[in-house]
């Protein structure tokens, strides 16, 4: 009987973890490339993300086709020629806040954090480590980060004729506005 009680407490603790999770379905990821020949930028407002404040774990996932460009042709080339979106429809990130202790989730404010994790794009995974900020606000948590990625690291081949038009390293901006995940 004692054991059963213990197990049920444990399992309660385990499932209670859910209350520590924050989620968004319309996070923002944008990237841009600036060269003397051409400026390119794309925006995606349909990024799904979960942040577990008990462990500092964070995951993102989005459809590549949700990135939108000003120029329809550019978007088509992005999906068809570079990202091969029908073959590799999603990009994802699995990571962890390494200095979770420096964030006080019960007090509103902005906290600097470092996030380490695996970024998967075009079916290629690379470890990345980036600085960002966690902003604790009433009723939610905002996360922001800015980092650079190199297309070739993700096996995205860029032909010689257009190489000069695309930045060697693309700037990426991530902005998430999380709200507590309700239990189902």
């Amino acid at each position, binding site marked *: 009987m004692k054991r059963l009680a213990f197990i049920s407490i444990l399992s309660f603790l385990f499932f209670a973890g859910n209350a520590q999770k924050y989620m968004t379905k319309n996070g923002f990821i*944008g990237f841009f490339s600036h060269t003397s020949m051409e400026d390119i930028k794309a925006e995606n407002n349909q990024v799904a993300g979960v942040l577990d404040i008990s462990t500092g774990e964070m995951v993102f996932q989005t459809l590549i086709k949700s990135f939108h460009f000003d120029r329809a*042709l550019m978007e088509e080339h992005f999906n068809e020629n570079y990202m091969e979106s029908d073959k590799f429809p999603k990009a994802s990130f699995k990571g962890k806040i390494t200095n979770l202790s420096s964030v006080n989730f019960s007090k509103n404010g902005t906290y600097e954090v470092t996030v380490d994790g695996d970024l998967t794009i075009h079916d290629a995974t690379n470890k990345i480590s980036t600085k960002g900020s966690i902003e604790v606000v009433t009723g939610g948590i905002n996360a922001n980060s800015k980092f650079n990625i190199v297309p070739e690291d993700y096996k995205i081949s860029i032909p010689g004729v*257009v190489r000069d038009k695309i930045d060697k390293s693309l700037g990426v901006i991530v902005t998430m506005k999380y709200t507590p995940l309700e239990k189902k």
Partner: protein
Amino acid sequence: MKRLPLAILFFLVPSWIFAQDDLMNLLDQNDPKEINFTTATFKSTRILNGHSIEKMAPGQLDFRISHRFGRINSGAYNFYGLDQSNVHFSLEYGILKWLMVGIGRGTYEKTFDGSAKFTVLRQSTGARIMPISLSIFSSVALKTLKPNDPTITNYFSSRLSYVGQALIARKINQSFSIQISPTYVHRNLVATELDPNDLLSIGAGGRMKLSKRVSLNAEYYYLANPKTYLSQKVYNPLSVGFDIETGGHVFQLFFTNSLAMIEKGFIGETTGTWTKADIHFGFNISRVFNLKKHKKPEIL
């Protein structure tokens, strides 16, 4: 009591190991069911001579320059046809998601043309499954070549011809797309009594990608009208060539037995035949301009 630590492990280990996968699963569960529209069935708004289901997106302007040279069998003196050149310029603009309009001018019979292309169905998977894409194309052409018979009265209306097309396409896989194009052409004035005013034709075309930026295209139009009594012998147009895409340009390089670059001409008035090497080298160059205002995003 000895078994307790085991029980703890039993509960904690999975939660450690699978914590992140759980988060991922959470995302997967919340994946919105979306309609996944098929894009880039063809690289360009033309398969080769005829229209494909593709249109310009809203705010995008396509400037096209097309050439058909003379017949290859005209010999070395004419540099295998390259001395003679027929040109067709056009501007095509996407107004709405489902509507593109265009204007053009071609050497062939000094013709001006205006056209509209409508999207009716879009091939899609996901939340809505649609096996094909369907576009409707319609155009009016105004021939401005001076009439060769000055004795008859020439009305403005006798210079006009009309085209209606249903373009039905399916992108079968990443590299292979096909299209069937039932076509109706009406000519207000024809050369002789033998020639019908109405032409019915069915076109078939396809493309096969050879690499990410190059595809092999072929297109054929079958003219259903009996060809026996026509005042001139006409053939079904067959075109074979390549699409080459370089950033903002699409180059289409091909061989065809038709000289005209509008439907009325290549469907009803193709007088060359492949069997006698009445072949023209041709190319289309498409350059797309973005006329949509760049909206500055708040963050970038």
